[in-house]
């Protein structure tokens, strides 16, 4: 893999024009929330980027993150970027298995010591390392051994970033996040269950072009996790007008009203779902009529129920992350709004609303 051609040569081989590359860089700048003026720099950096060896470790996980990233607009230039990154170990995707696969990992580590990138999906069980092993090596040992020579670590998915479903109460395996074990390497968290495919490739592209991106207090790239889903939601105008769906089949639900009362965690969840969207930009959960579960936030499994509004106390189970606490202000505003609206407002939720009503209430 070390002899792979550079991206510009790959583009030429595949008959991809410079114009197409510029288009890709333009869209990438948009996805990375960078100014369009950065496009020439992105193009230049991508063309001249060294191709770091990437070792992808899958621990206590469901393979959903890998499933997601392999469905990223294939085949496009993103695939080329993946070719340009030398993906030297990924036990789900690689043909080799057993000792041959481990030999590939060890070779890559030795060859690129101090320069390779480790991508991790899945949590690490520490109650008994035997709960999850690969080729007889415990996840804990493999992570420590591989991280030792890494330039950086990308924790992909909520399991690697925060412990995820394995960490959910009662956490039978003692599952923890990568950041709870590795303390001496830069770690980029790309949470989500799974993360948006283009966000995963976007973070890797950012690492290639400009190095470690600016991170928030939870280790997430601000470009993708800088704003709440609520702030970018197309249903936000309904929220601002106090128009909420009360059930999954009422007038409000059919009319695209805000799903706050049905448990939407958009106000306390930071992710690019509402702008980047899923399935090649087709839609995202809220657009499909389902409340946001808050899967990019720590302990979202234990936050008191997917269908309980944020304004309903969740009892002892609520363990909100820092971002969620920050977002509490938004929840407070929403709670006050709901209280003000009261019972009479709820009863009116099924009334016909026309354009003039909306204009008057704005």
């Amino acid at each position, binding site marked *: 893999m070390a002899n792979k051609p550079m991206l510009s040569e790959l583009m*030429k081989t595949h008959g*991809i*024009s*410079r*114009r*197409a590359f*510029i*288009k*890709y860089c*333009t*869209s990438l*700048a*948009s*996805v990375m*929330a960078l*100014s*369009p*003026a950065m496009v020439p720099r992105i193009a230049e950096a991508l063309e001249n980027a060294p191709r770091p060896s990437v070792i992808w470790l899958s621990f206590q996980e469901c393979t959903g993150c890998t499933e997601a990233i392999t469905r990223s*607009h294939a085949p*496009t*230039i993103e695939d080329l970027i993946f070719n340009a990154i030398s993906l030297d170990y990924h036990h789900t995707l690689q043909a080799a298995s057993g000792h041959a696969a481990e030999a590939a990992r060890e070779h890559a580590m030795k060859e690129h010591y101090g320069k390779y990138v480790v991508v991790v999906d899945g949590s690490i069980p520490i109650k008994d390392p035997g709960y999850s092993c690969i080729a007889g090596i415990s996840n804990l040992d493999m992570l420590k051994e591989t991280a030792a020579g890494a330039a950086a670590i990308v924790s992909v998915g909520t399991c690697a970033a925060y412990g995820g479903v394995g960490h959910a109460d009662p956490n039978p395996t003692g599952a923890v996040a990568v950041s709870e074990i590795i303390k001496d390497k830069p770690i980029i968290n790309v949470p989500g269950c799974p993360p948006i495919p283009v966000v995963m490739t976007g973070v890797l592209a950012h690492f290639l072009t400009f190095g470690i991106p600016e991170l928030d207090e939870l280790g997430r790239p601000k470009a993708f996790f800088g704003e709440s889903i609520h*702030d*970018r939601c*197309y249903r*936000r*105008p*309904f929220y601002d007008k106090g128009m909420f769906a009360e059930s999954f*089949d009422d*007038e409000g639900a*059919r*009319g*695209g009203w805000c799903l706050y009362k049905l448990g939407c965690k958009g106000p306390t969840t930071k992710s690019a779902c509402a*702008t980047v969207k899923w399935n*090649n*930009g*087709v839609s995202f959960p809220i657009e499909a009529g389902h409340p946001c579960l808050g899967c990019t936030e720590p302990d979202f499994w234990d936050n008191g129920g997917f269908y309980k509004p944020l304004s309903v106390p969740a009892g002892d189970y609520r363990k909100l992350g820092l971002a969620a606490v920050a977002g509490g202000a938004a929840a407070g505003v929403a709670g006050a709004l709901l209280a003000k609206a009261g019972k009479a407002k709820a009863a009116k939720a*099924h009334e*016909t*609303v*026309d*354009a003039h009503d*909306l*204009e008057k209430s*704005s």
Partner: protein
Amino acid sequence: MDCNSPNTKKTSDIDDVLSFVSTGNAIPLLHEIKHALGQLLENNVTSTIDLGAIPFAPGDERLLDDVLGIGEVHAALAVMGESHVRETAVPGVWRIDHFDEDGEIQSRFIEITFMPDILKTQRTDAETGLETLSQRLNALDDNR
């Protein structure tokens, strides 16, 4: 649920209602475009606005379309999916929409410029073109 109930709004009605929902961001954006157009004329400075970076509701889209209108030029590009480059009825202001190979939207921009860069032939592409043309001419010679 009775889908034929008279209380059930038709999709077109809902779309109509939605088309009036506005975040209020269209007017400031139009002023930004006006300022950028002034900069283009006075200082030859081009500007690009990423529409994906601005919360926009259907009502904002409608206002933007209504005010900018449709101009004289519409170019369709086949570059890893389609791209549409349209000059608006305000010359110098262009709408650029990039789609992927599945026809899904990738990114959307407004460019304030005399000619969007994406329409120009890129130098490296022209170099490849020169090579290609030379090879084809050589092939013609060989076949004679």
